């Protein structure tokens, strides 16, 4: 129980740090990293939920996290491409 809380709680802290960084920082790259940190926080929480002590872990949250990671990668890739396109248009901005 304690391990579960610590692991999941770390996820929540990551999530909050991600929001903070997203709100406070202007550059695209930092916002994207912030979003990915938020995502990691949520994934942490799910993995913590899966923990069952000596029993084999709950596979469902694991699968959800795998799906979530692929989705996050896709979104990050698209955002980076959009960002680079903007930079090409306006190298100073």
């Amino acid at each position, binding site marked *: 129980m304690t391990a579960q809380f610590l692991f999941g709680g770390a996820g929540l802290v990551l*999530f909050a740090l*991600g929001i903070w960084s997203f709100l406070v920082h202007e550059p695209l790259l930092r916002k994207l990293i912030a979003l990915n940190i938020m995502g990691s926080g949520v994934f942490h929480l799910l993995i913590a939920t899966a923990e069952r002590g000596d029993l084999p872990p709950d596979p469902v949250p694991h699968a959800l996290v795998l799906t979530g990671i692929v989705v996050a990668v896709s*979104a990050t890739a698209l955002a980076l491409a959009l960002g680079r396109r903007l930079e090409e248009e306006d190298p100073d901005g």
Partner: protein
Amino acid sequence: MDSLALAIGVPLIAALAAAAFPARAQALGLAGALATTVASLQVTALVWQQGSLRSEPGGWGAPLGLALQADGLSAALIAMTALVALATAIYASGYFRPGNRPREFWPLWLLLWTALNGTFLAADLFNLYVNMELLGLAAAALGALGGQPAAVAASLRYLLIGLLGSMTYLLGVALVYTAYGTLDMDLVAAALRPGPVAGTAMVLMTGGLALKAALFPLHFWLPPAHANATAPVSAALSALVVKAAFYLVLRLWLDVFTPLVTPAAAHLIGLLGAAAVVWGSWRALRAERLKLLAAYSTVAQIGYLCLFFPLLQATPPGTAREDLLAALVLMALTHGFAKSGLFLAAGLVQQSAGHDRIKELGGTAQHLPATTFSIALAGTALIGLPPSGSFIGKWLLMTSAVQTGQWWWIAAVMTGTLLAAAYVFRVLGQAFNLEPTPRRFLTQGRTELPALLLALTSVAVLGLAARPLWQLLQPGGAA
């Protein structure tokens, strides 16, 4: 045959075909749009007969497996999506000049449609997250399709905001799974105990979705994204994509978090809605460009839909509540048709004039009578004048406001109505000028006709023949 799976599978296969064979993207895309429309309307027809549908991809069933589910609400939105998307697809086939854009447009367009149908049919909270990401990515990619820096920047912002919303939503889902051990909406609803966990999950999920639905004051990303995209994309973003997020808020509040919907919570949504109505309409009035005007008007229209929350909350289950819910759906549908019609028409104006600055549109308005007419019809529906569907919606909204003693919402509705009249007629006033008389009503049927038909639907069909909607929304089906 599982019509629910087909409503998602058909557009998906069509999208893949259009992506794999770019040289034939347009033909494949149009054929796919037609097939998807048939598949979607089949869902609506079956819901009409049976009241609700459920199917379980994988055959495992909840809670281990996933489920698709359709009731009157989702069937109505699927039907609207089908008709709007089909008309927009036909428009798009005439709108894009040959070149790179058609081949990029069609697969993304069909993926967007897949995600919309998937969202309306999903019965699983995590599956909704994946659907919303598909929706968000396809929408952002489509929004940037023009390639102008303004469009790319707006799409990027839209994508980031969407991701922020999704992550917040997903945290809520994770809490729900931690506390209740299931992701199926019905099972969560059955297991739900009011308390801090459920409350936090509801706030997180609603907050994330409100960001995507551009609910005031989280609407700031919408106007640039919707105003800078190409016309068919703007139409879909404003008419359909925002609606999908709003639909989820409604679904969660009505069916999942029911015991947590207190008067205070409902009033908060109502208050934000009222602010959105006034602020969105005011900004639309001040907008200098036609498409920006249309985009701000979407902010206001989402506000109208939010006004229904406190009224629904205060109305005990029964005929009055069913009427109110139907009025809400009617307003959402009317806005979907009207706004898509308006954006398509605005696209033609922009293409013909080379810009969409309202003050300089006189010649174009005179030159394209059918398009101006579409704007007028869509404007009628946006103001909420008879005989449009939103007139009936507002009538029922205000009746309910009087009956539940919440008369203050009437003030918001009337303010929004008058402001809407002002911004619509600011555009229409440009059509009366000393330019030469147009020779024909219709000049380019393939693009003008879809816009006109969409706008006409919002006025004549939804205003005068909306009664089947009530039957569709009946719990047991119409037949």
